[in-house]
């Protein structure tokens, strides 16, 4: 019998399979919510690190900017920062589009946003790779 999983006094219309899967009516479960939180937690140390690194620059001249991120540790953290930022950004822009834009524009926006974020992530990754190997 469906609907008496949580005891006799609460009636649930969810099937036992649906209850076990825990994916809700949209079928996505809490995946987006968790991904947003985990990327946010990752950015808590990464964003201040990036600002601190910029603040410790003697000048904004080419050599100083290059030296700042060429070390393997700095390049690793910069990669983590850029990729996490873009991932978190994609998740956030998706929610804003879903909440405030309707119809065909929403679908177009969601596609453009997803693709743009992927392209930015690839460009950022390749740029950092070249910065590290720049003489």
């Amino acid at each position, binding site marked *: 019998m469906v609907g008496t999983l949580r005891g006799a006094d609460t009636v649930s219309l969810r099937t036992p399979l649906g209850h076990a899967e825990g994916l809700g009516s949209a079928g996505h479960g809490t995946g987006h919510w968790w991904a947003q939180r985990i990327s946010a937690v990752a950015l808590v140390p990464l964003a201040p690190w990036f600002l601190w690194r910029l*603040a410790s620059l003697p000048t*904004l001249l080419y050599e100083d*900017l290059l030296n700042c*991120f060429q070390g393997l540790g700095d390049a690793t953290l910069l990669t983590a920062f*850029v990729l996490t*930022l873009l991932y978190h950004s994609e998740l956030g822009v998706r929610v*804003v589009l879903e909440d405030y834009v309707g119809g065909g524009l929403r679908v177009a926006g969601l596609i453009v946003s997803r693709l743009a974020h992927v392209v*930015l992530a690839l460009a*950022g990754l390749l*740029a950092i790779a070249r910065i590290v190997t720049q003489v």
Partner: protein
Amino acid sequence: MPSAANRPLSPHLSVYRWQYTMALSILHRFTGVVLSIGSVALVGCLLALASGPHWGGNLEGLFRLPIVRLAALGWTYCLFYHFANGVRHLVWDIGRGFEPKHAQLSGWFVFLASLAATGAYWWWGPFAGRIL
């Protein structure tokens, strides 16, 4: 079953008395979108730096332009605000700070702290003494 157009809606924003915590909530989304747009500029700077001394060398001149400085100032404010309010959200997510009194207090703290942090960063940071 009612069609999508005339289903009952949940109480919308207009039924609530205006409170500044609402403005803070909207500001969180607004600053998030600004940071998303700013990430294009961030990747652009990395690409310039990666393509050698010619383009990388132009960055210093670029950041002397008042309009670019203003944009960078706005970007850092958005980052500090979104960061502080994001931490406020994470605290809510673990189930703390929901009482109206606490939520209002943390709201004021986040708003003022992000302003102070932006000021401090531009006073002592990479653009120290060269704001606009």
